[in-house]
């Protein structure tokens, strides 16, 4: 399988990465090189094989349903590019 330029633009959009038009052909060629490489997986008979969900056979631990963390808004927003009164600031999203 290979991707065309329109698909590359669509993937960039889904990835939320601005991709200038002049970069589309190179990205397309690189993605197609990788898709060509993974094509050999089609040879493998996976009939009846369970997809891996956990590499180590272990049950996830349960814990008490209680609050164990919080009350540190200052720390949470300490690295924000823009914040005010412990809120993250973003451009207006609702008109």
């Amino acid at each position: 399988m290979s991707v065309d330029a329109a698909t590359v633009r669509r993937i960039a959009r889904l990835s939320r990465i601005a991709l200038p038009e002049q970069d589309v052909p190179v990205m397309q060629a690189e993605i197609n090189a990788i898709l060509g490489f993974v094509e050999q997986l089609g040879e493998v008979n996976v009939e009846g094989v369970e997809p891996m969900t956990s590499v180590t056979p272990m049950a996830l631990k349960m814990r008490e349903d209680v609050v164990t963390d919080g009350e540190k808004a200052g720390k949470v927003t300490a690295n924000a590019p823009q914040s005010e009164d412990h809120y993250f600031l973003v451009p207006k999203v609702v008109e």
Partner: protein
Amino acid sequence: MTDLTQLTLTEAREGLARKSFTAVELAEAHLSAIEAARPLNAYVLETPDQALAMARAADARLARGEAGRLEGIPIGVKDLFATEGVRTTASSRILGNFVPTYESTVTGQLWRDGAVMLGKLNNDEFAMGSSNETSAFGPVVNPFLPANWSAEKGKAALSGDKKGLLVPGGSSGGSSAAVAANLCLGATATDTGGSIRQPAAFTGTVGIKPTYGRCSRWGIVAFASSLDQAGPIAKTVRDCAALMTSMAGHDPKDSTSVDLPVPDFEAAIGRSVAGKTIGIPREYRVEGMPAEIEALWKKGADMLRAAGARIVDVSLPHTKYALPAYYIVAPAEASSNLARYDGVRYGLRVPGKDITELYEQTRAQGFGREVKRRIMIGTYVLSAGYYDAYYLRAQKIRTLIKKDFEDVYAAGVDAILTPATPSAAFGIAEMADADPVQMYLNDIFTVTVNMAGLPGLALPGGTDAAGLPLGLQLIGRPFDEETLFSLGAVIEDQAGRVTASRWW
């Protein structure tokens, strides 16, 4: 006084116990070595004040007889580990001046045991790469010179464009170069597809990727969560075992960390390997494999045989599918993990006319090429209509890869011996025009181990004709790192260390 940076971690620990020198002297020796080696670009941030404060505290504990297992030992930290109050970037522009307000569990355990932080180490951006060339801070230089290069030629290239000098491997290239250049006594590293073992092989150092779940991933910048594991790079097998003992352990903050007791891994050094069964997987004898690698592999088997191990041929039939399956699973996980870099909560923000443009511009300018490409591949293979054909199929193949190993271990094999890499270190910029798959082939021998969640130890087995280090890899049963340390020590005893002499 001898140059304290030449010591191994074990020798330094003995020297501190004998009071031959202090932790402050040890830290100072390393800080000046780091300063003199800045052109190698191994450290992206030096933390001398913190190092000296930690060393003074270590000296006080040593004087009181309260020394921890790594008391006063200066180490470097890969810039993927969050360090409280100390800038952490994953070598990406998108994290900018991110200063964590918390400490990763693994580094916290090292400080608990008395280790001293010298600074943060360079790596491929978000650990995506095999040469450390994708770092936003630029490439790291391998302390081994290319064949027939004089020190003068090396220095000239170092002050120029660095072309021709060798890469230290990646993604943990700062870690491997710093250990090999005597800029720390050990380093933290991470391994998603080979990022501890391939750099160790390229620099004559020892590195272990432990079993998935052995170390907590909490506070480590995530790349592909089902594959990522932390581990050490050090000068010797024993040094590696000492660091591993501190780094491992259950952490309630990482639900995939395993609640098993942590053995004293150092106790495995010197344990007899007589009667152990070592598998040689025929599928690792790949087409076009250099004769030197083939010879190294045979030499490794001979060394284990000389120590009383039994060498048997084994088959891991799905080996060739591990790398392509990895290049679906890892980018898929990366695309969702890296969704968090949105220009809102931390790191770089590039303004836009609306929120979508803010995201798109921030991520376009913040991520490097390799990272962008992997995010896009991951987005594609997870997108509607392609999920079954790519991601689901890759996860099924992962089950088959793991089963290959389970079958071999069930037949009585204790560990598997392979080369660590298909070649010795290559030159900086040498792969610039190759398609991405050529670079990915570096991980052909290591990536199976991540896919199956197993432990893998890389250590020097010898050198090529040019004197460059070549690495062997030992793959173990789940949670049996101890056998790897025992076997590794046997090889190290016979092959010796491979060290670089200072030319920079």
